[in-house]
C-alpha cells in the first residue's frame, strides 16, 4: 500500500494555472480548444526536448489547457520543431508536415529553430525551420522555459 500513501502525501504538484490568454491565434480558430501536438527533433541539442517534456509534466500540466502529445502526425494539429534543420532531417520534417491533416500549424521551439542559433553556418545545417516548412509561431529561448512553451501553445487552444 506504499503507493496510496505516496499519492496522499504528495497531493497535487501542478502549479496554479495563470489566466487564459486574451486572444487566440487566428489560424487556430478552427481548433475550438483542443490542440494535439506532434514533436519533431530536426537536429536539436535536446535541451528544448527536455523543456517540452517538462511542459507536459505534472508540474506545468499542459493537459489542463486542452493540449496533448500524440503518437502520429495524422492525429496532430500542431508540429513542434526544435533545433536547426540538419541536412538529414529536412526530408523527414517535410514528410511529417505532409502527413498532417489540414488545418495544420508549425511551432518553432527554441532559438535554433528560429535562426539556427549557435549552429548557424554549421556544415550539416540546412537552415532554420521556416526554410523547410511554413512556421506559424515561434518560441524564443535557449532553451525556452516550460512556462513559455505552455503559454505559446495555450495561445492556440485559447484556454
Amino acid at each position, binding site marked *: 500500500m506504499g503507493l496510496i500513501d505516496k499519492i496522499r502525501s504528495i497531493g*497535487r504538484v501542478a502549479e496554479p494555472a495563470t489566466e487564459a490568454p486574451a486572444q487566440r491565434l487566428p489560424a487556430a480558430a478552427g481548433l*475550438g*480548444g483542443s490542440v494535439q501536438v506532434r514533436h519533431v527533433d530536426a537536429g536539436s541539442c535536446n535541451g528544448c526536448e527536455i523543456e517540452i517534456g517538462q511542459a507536459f509534466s505534472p508540474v506545468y500540466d499542459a493537459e489542463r489547457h486542452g493540449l496533448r502529445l500524440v503518437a502520429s502526425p495524422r492525429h496532430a494539429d500542431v508540429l513542434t520543431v526544435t533545433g536547426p534543420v540538419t541536412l538529414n532531417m529536412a526530408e523527414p520534417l517535410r514528410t511529417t508536415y505532409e502527413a498532417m*491533416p489540414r488545418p495544420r500549424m508549425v511551432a518553432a521551439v527554441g532559438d535554433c529553430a528560429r535562426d539556427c542559433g549557435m549552429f548557424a553556418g554549421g556544415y550539416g545545417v540546412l537552415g532554420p525551420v521556416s526554410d523547410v516548412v511554413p512556421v506559424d509561431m515561434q518560441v524564443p529561448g535557449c532553451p525556452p522555459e516550460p512556462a513559455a512553451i505552455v503559454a505559446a501553445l495555450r495561445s492556440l487552444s485559447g484556454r
Partner: protein
Amino acid sequence: MSAWVAACVQAGLVAAVAPLLVGFMRAVRARLEGRAGGRLVQPWRDLRKLLRKEPITPTGAGVVFTAAPVVLMATSVLVAAAAPYLSTRGPLSGAADLIVVVGLLLLGTVALALAGLETGTAFGGMGASREMTIAALVEPTLLLSVFALSTRVGSTDLGAIVAAGATDPAAVFTPASALAAAALAIAVLAEAGRLPVDNPATHLELTMVHEAMVLEYAGRDLALVEWASAMRLSIMLGLLANLFIPWGVAGSLHPAALALAAGVFVVKLTVLAGLLAAGEVFLAKLRLFRIPELLAGSFVLGLLAVITSAVLA
C-alpha cells in the same frame, strides 16, 4: 413505436455520455498523479475539432480503410440501442441477445483490424494481429459468463436476465454471479483495451495494440474511431453494471421511469469508470505473452461460475 423512441434515446444517451466518461477517467487519473487534468468536456472538444478536420487515406488503401470507422460506429450504436440500459423492454428483442451483442462488438473489432492490415504499414498489421489474438482468447471467457448468467434465467436475452435480477435480488448475490462478474470484468478490460492488457495512452508504437491500428486515421475518420471506442467502453461498463447491479432499470417505457433509469445508469457508469481509472494508476501493462495467463485466469473464473450456478442452482 415508443419502444423505438426509447431505443433511439438510449443510443443518444450512450453516445453523448461516452466521451464525458473518458474525460472523467482522465480527470481521476490526473488527480491521482498530482496533476490538475483537463476538463470533462475535453474529449467532446477533441471530437468536434477532429470532425472538422480533413480525413486522409493512405495511397494504396481502399474502401475497407474508409468503411471501417463507419462499421465500428454502426455496430456500437446498434448495441447501444438494443442492450437494456434504460428499460428491459427494448424494441430489438432479437438483437438484445447476449451472444449477438458479443458478435456485433467483435464485428467492429474485425473491421478495424482489416483496416489496419489494409494500410500496408508494419504497425497496422502488428496492431491487427495482436488485437485479433486477444479477441480470440477473450471469447471463451465472455461466453462462459454468458452461460453462467443465462442458466439463472433459462435465456440469453439480456432484457430477461436484467429483469430477473431486478425482481429477485437474492439471485444476484450468489457466488456464481460474483465469479461471472469477475470473469466478465477482466474480459471487458481486454475488449476495451484498458490496462493491464493495453495502454490507451501509450506513444510507443511497439507497445501498442489498439492504437497501432488507428495510427493512419485522421480527421473525421479518427473522430469516428475514437467516439466509437469511447462508446464501446461505456457499452461494456454499462452491461457490467446492469447485469450485476440490475436495479434502477425501468420495467416499462414510461418517460418518467426512463428519465429516472437514465440518471441511475449514468451514476453506475461514473462509479465503475472511476474505479477503473483509479485501479489503472496502480497497474502496469502486461507483456503481450503474459496476457494469455490473465485471460486463462478469467476463463477459469467463468468456468467456476458455470459450475457453481449449475450445482448451487
